[in-house]
């Protein structure tokens, strides 16, 4: 990673230097070429107007004024002999050429040869040294910059790498503590909020979820152990009594079968809640007529309400559709109504309502649930002390809560003054868009 970063930095520096080189030296060379062309043009013009003599004079003047000593000229007569200028010899060919001066001072020249009107030949040249200097300066600069980038990149890479290693080690250590059983321990998160902190936040959220699930699992195990022991003990007592009392074996056997059925129902309810909580049922969601479902559930529980002398009122908006699991929602509504019948006042009033916005409300006029207990009754096996004497295992509302969560619905328990009002807000039907 660090190496790749370094390589890219280096590549960028080289490319940038190349571009700078190409632009700058090209510009300098262009300047030089322009000067030579201009000089040659002026001198050829001078030859046309004043002959070779005036060119010679002009050359002398130019050479005298050239302090930098980078200008070179040669004026040759029609016979090829040198007439003026500081170049000893030069190939007398028209057009551009590169010359090399040897001797005490070597120099590389850019030369332009031109035949003069009326005979003779002119060579105008410039020393390429300034361009070469510029080039070597740029090369040096590129070297320095490249070197510096390399060093900085290397140092930065090492620093970042060490930072990454240190933070990864810290996360690793924190996770090791969680693995060792310290399930409440969490990864450190800095205020900065970079990718590492986001990752740590995500891992912490996953750990929170795991911890929640573990607690739920432990709770269920405890609950099962506790709540199944009572009916199993009763069953065993019954069977023992039947062994001693042969006359009563038939009644005892029937009672034992009833006990078994009760136990099996508890198991079935627990399994169903677990299945719903796993979320696997979401794949089977579909659109269905919630109004007719509500009406059916009201019809099925009507006789039960009648037996307790209760009036079951319904206010079901027609044609309401819901998107979800029809069977589970049937069961959830059934549980709510079953609770209302069981816990409502004998001879009292019950109400089942469905609004056009798919909000189901079930009300009874019993003792209700104290505000502090409302969250607890949604847990498995939780029963109010007042309800201990009545039938039921305390799983009904736990299933409703699980079904509500599966559907992304809001489940609210409130005071119906007197009694309990349960609201299940399913929200608008969402066919085709999947579960919320």
């Amino acid at each position, binding site marked *: 990673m660090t190496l790749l970063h370094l390589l890219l930095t280096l590549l960028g520096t080289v490319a940038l230097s190349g571009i700078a080189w190409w632009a700058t030296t090209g510009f300098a060379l262009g300047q030089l070429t322009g000067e030579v062309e201009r000089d040659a043009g002026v001198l050829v013009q001078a030859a046309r107007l004043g002959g070779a003599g005036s060119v010679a004079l002009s050359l002398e003047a130019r050479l005298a004024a050239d302090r930098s000593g980078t200008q070179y000229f040669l004026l040759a007569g029609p016979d090829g002999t040198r007439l003026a200028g500081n170049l000893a010899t030069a190939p007398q060919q028209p057009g551009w050429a590169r010359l090399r001066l040897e001797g005490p001072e070597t120099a590389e020249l850019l030369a332009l040869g031109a035949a003069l009107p009326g005979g003779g030949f002119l060579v105008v040249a410039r020393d390429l040294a300034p361009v070469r200097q510029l080039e070597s300066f740029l090369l040096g600069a590129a070297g320095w910059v490249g070197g510096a980038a390399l060093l900085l990149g290397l140092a930065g890479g090492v620093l970042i790498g060490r930072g990454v290693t240190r933070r990864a080690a810290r996360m690793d250590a924190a996770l090791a503590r969680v693995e060792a059983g310290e399930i409440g321990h969490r990864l450190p998160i800095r205020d900065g909020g970079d990718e590492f902190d986001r990752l740590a936040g995500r891992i912490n959220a996953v750990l929170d979820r795991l911890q929640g699930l573990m607690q739920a699992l432990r709770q269920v195990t405890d609950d099962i152990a506790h709540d199944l022991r009572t009916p199993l003990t009763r069953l065993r007592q019954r069977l023992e009594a039947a062994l001693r009392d042969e006359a009563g074996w038939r009644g005892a056997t029937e009672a034992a079968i009833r006990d078994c059925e009760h136990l099996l129902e508890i198991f079935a309810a627990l399994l169903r809640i677990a*299945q719903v909580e796993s979320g696997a049922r979401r794949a089977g969601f579909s659109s269905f007529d919630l109004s007719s479902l509500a009406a059916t559930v009201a019809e*099925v529980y009507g006789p039960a309400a009648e037996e307790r002398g209760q009036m079951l009122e319904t206010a079901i908006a027609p044609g309401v559709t819901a998107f979800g699991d029809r069977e589970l929602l049937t069961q959830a509504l059934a549980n709510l109504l079953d609770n209302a019948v069981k816990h409502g006042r004998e001879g009292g009033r019950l109400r089942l309502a469905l609004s056009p916005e798919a909000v189901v409300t079930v009300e009874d006029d019993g003792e209700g649930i104290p505000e502090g207990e409302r969250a607890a009754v949604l847990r498995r096996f939780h029963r109010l002390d007042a309800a201990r004497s009545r039938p039921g295992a305390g799983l009904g509302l736990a299933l409703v809560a699980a079904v509500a969560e599966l559907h992304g619905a809001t489940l609210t328990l409130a005071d119906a003054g007197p009694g309990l009002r349960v609201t299940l807000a399913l929200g608008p039907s969402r066919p085709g868009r999947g579960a919320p």
Partner: protein
Amino acid sequence: MKILLVEDDAETAGFIRRGLTEAGHVVDHASDGPDGLHLAMGGGYDVLVVDRMLPRLDGLGLVRALRAAGQRVPVLFLTARTGVGDRVEGLEAGADDYLGKPFAFAELMARLNALARRPPMAQEPTVLRVGDLEMDLLRRQVTRGGRRIELQPREFRLLEYLMRRAGEVVTRTMLLEGVWDFHFDPKTSVVETHVSRLRAKLGGEDQPPLIHTMRGAGYVIRAPE
């Protein structure tokens, strides 16, 4: 009836076999999937009772293989897995009915009778008749001895369910599933209430009763002797 029972738990198998034999049926028993499939392929059974979880080849696989081979014999799945999705899965594999363990023996018996006597999918009748009771399925009208009987939609479905199985015992659970679409027992007397209301509407003062209660089993509709 000749019944093939595929069940690996010896105790459950013994219990079912004893009950069915006492009721006068002939029972063959296989205790794993491949044996069951082999026997079933031989044909000659009126109905199959198949446990879902079997050694070597599970119930789903057995029924799928049977259906793939063109065997149309009715199959009832018997299973401890009564999750909501499991029933649908079983029916999709080609089973005709699904019964969760534990079950009452009368329930199993009623369902097997219903399956074995299911008529081949020939022409759907448009009129059902039991004695002088007539149900016109197209006009959705019910008459007894020519007298119109007004029924609520649910009562109509209930009567239709019974009349389609005239002469067979129909259990409370079958009615809850078939008429109310309830796949669990709500433990209310909704079935009893509706049946007694239906009885009252069907029976005049001097007319013999049509719907009979079979104690501990369910209901049956049949023409008076």
